[in-house]
């Protein structure tokens, strides 16, 4: 009897140990890989300063999780899905990276999420825009955090249509993000009684927009929409100004503008442009305080992506601490169960498709007279509540969502 008791006791002890081995941080390290465009068109919206935001999150968290240390690796993906894929493959297969952060070009995020799914690691996409990332390209291994093309269209496009811009001509960057933006804008414009009279797909990136602006003018559309980002958008805006687009009565709608772009254009050139944003540095005391710290570290004010990287990393580390695990599914499930109300997001939560929904804001660029310093650029016109802003689950094509 005693022997069998011992056996049962040992077996029970082993079972408990085996069970708790899952809720454990592998090799006592939480390793985060930061992947972004560090030298090209999209450098300033995330880039090296995004890495600084990540480091701030880790430092504020205390530098360690339940005794396990936190390590960072980083790489420049040069907006290339090929380079990104091989880098992330190396990270998850050889370097024990647990979570990939940053992720800017939409094509990069889509490519990387496949590799993460294969290896059951976690990715938190902060920079990319394409709503397809949590729609047809959703996986159980990534979260889309800051914004996407759906609220951008809902905010900016519906505002412009309701202000009288019924006919639209769309200049689209010819890759994943541009296509997603164009699809979402088309849907919103038509739902609000407008009409798309023409679209043009330009190569990504494009240095000279004169030919495309000319075609937009020739279309006679009331609104010329820019479904592109970064240098493409600023080039297009400058060329539009040179060719007198707004002066002769057309409205220019820039669908994706970051603070870094508006800062480069300046209040003089960008005044009056309406845009949708997930966050702005000057919204309240909390955002200002964090932005001041960011400014001290980097010399520039943060974009919504920088703030999103900080917030998502903090949420990730909290989830790792709470579940005592760095297993992707465990952490992701916990993150989905935890509401987010911090410096970055109000009324935030992560849905089953990986989409983090939170309040978005329609903003307008201030005039030079209203702008008190070089970074005082937006005025917030209205809040778009989380539930209205993002694609409803009922319309989702994501296989993770149970739609009958």
């Amino acid at each position, binding site marked *: 009897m005693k022997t069998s008791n011992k056996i049962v006791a040992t077996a029970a002890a082993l079972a408990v140990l085996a069970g708790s081995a899952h809720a454990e941080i592998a090799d006592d390290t939480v390793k985060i890989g930061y992947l972004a465009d560090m030298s090209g068109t999209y*450098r300033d919206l995330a880039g090296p300063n995004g890495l600084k935001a990540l480091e701030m999150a880790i430092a504020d968290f205390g530098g360690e999780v339940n005794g396990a240390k936190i390590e960072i690796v980083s790489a420049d993906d040069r907006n290339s899905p090929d380079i990104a894929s091989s880098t992330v493959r190396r990270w998850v297969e050889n370097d024990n990276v647990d979570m990939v952060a940053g992720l800017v070009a939409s094509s990069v995020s889509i490519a990387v999420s496949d590799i993460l799914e294969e290896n059951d690691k976690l990715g938190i996409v902060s920079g990319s825009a394409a709503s397809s990332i949590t729609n047809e390209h959703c996986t159980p291994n990534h979260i889309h955090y800051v914004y996407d093309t759906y609220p951008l269209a809902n905010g900016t496009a519906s505002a412009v249509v309701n202000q009288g811009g019924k006919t639209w001509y769309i200049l689209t960057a010819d890759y994943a993000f541009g296509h997603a933006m164009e699809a979402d804008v088309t849907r919103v414009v038509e739902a609000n009684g407008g009409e798309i009279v023409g679209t043009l797909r330009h190569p990504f*990136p494009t240095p000279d927009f004169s*030919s495309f602006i000319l075609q937009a003018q020739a279309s006679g559309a009331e609104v010329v929409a820019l479904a592109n980002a970064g240098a493409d958008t600023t080039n297009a805006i*400058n060329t539009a100004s040179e060719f*007198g687009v707004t002066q*002769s009565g057309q409205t220019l709608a820039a669908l994706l503008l970051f603070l870094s772009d508006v800062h480069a254009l300046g209040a003089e050139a960008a005044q009056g442009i309406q845009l949708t944003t997930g966050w702005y540095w000057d919204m309240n005391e909390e955002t200002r305080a964090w932005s001041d710290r960011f400014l001290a570290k980097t010399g520039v004010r943060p974009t919504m992506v920088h703030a999103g990287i900080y917030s998502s990393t903090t949420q990730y580390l909290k989830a790792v601490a709470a579940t005592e695990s760095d297993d992707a599914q465990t952490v992701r499930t916990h993150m989905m169960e935890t509401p987010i109300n911090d410096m970055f997001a109000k009324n935030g939560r992560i849905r089953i498709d990986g989409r983090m929904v939170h309040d978005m804001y329609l903003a307008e660029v201030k005039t030079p007279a209203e702008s008190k310093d070089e970074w005082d650029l937006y005025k917030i016109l209205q809040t778009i509540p989380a539930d209205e802003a993002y694609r409803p689950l009922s319309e989702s094509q994501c296989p993770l969502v149970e739609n009958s």
Partner: protein
Amino acid sequence: MRTAGIHDNRTPYYVFASGGVGSMVTIFGVPLAVLSGQLLIGVINGAFYALLSLGLAIIFGLLKIINFAHGAMYMLGAMATVVLFDAFGINYWVALFVVPVLVGLVGVVIEYFLLRRIAGQDHIYSLLLTFGAALLIQGVLTNFYGVSGLRYAMPDVFKGGMNLGFMFLPYYRAWVIAVALLVCFATWFMIEKTKLGAYLRAGTEDSQLMQGFGINVPLLISLTYGFGVMLAAFAGVLAAPIYSVTPIMGSHLLITVFAVVVIGGMGSIGGAIITGILMGVVEGLTKTFYPPASSAVIFLVMVVVLMCRPAGLFGKEA
């Protein structure tokens, strides 16, 4: 005295859209008026390509150096224009003369300290060396200035444009085409028709013989490289008011300009100019009929030309 012309111009400038034109001719579905506008833009961009490929053709044709730093020199020209204005108030007109000279000096320094070491070796070394130099320059400037772009205001005299009927042409674009073609022609003339040009052509063909005549060939080579760089920097100054001035603005353009030079024929000065304009037009037409291919069409032409006429359209067989 002209006030900011744009604000006066409230008339619709696309006549055909108002329905006032009698018969609207279309070619492959594109109205003739739109096509004319696109062709004009194509010629303007072509003049730009011509200016850039001219410098490259001079450096390769005469010096046999594959200058992968050409895009970076163009970028330095644009960045210097902005920086000199912000720091010293140097205006556009002065910059047109001063900036190419300054950047040209940078070119001379690169040639003297770096390229001279590998003179006479395989072309590939000059490609790698200049490519490395370009990456270095771009990286350092990206570190300081970021990639979002520096602001440079259009000179007041060029603000606004003229209504041509089929399109609205900004004055500045008209200026670009005029001055680019002028500089191209002047350069071609100098190299093909003057004594200095003759020395240059002879010196690079047979440097020992020329040195025997007492001509300082190494100096000539440095100055030639500097001159090619000056042309790139001049294009950069022209670009500053209309294109985003960023440290990476040259990297995209460089490959296209190389394709233009290869199509024209690596040794031909006149060929580079004509091909530049031609490719601008080809690209412009592609942007009208099938925009997604507009970045790639010049390379398609390059492939076809290399298969049919490996020396290029105007090149001489090596």
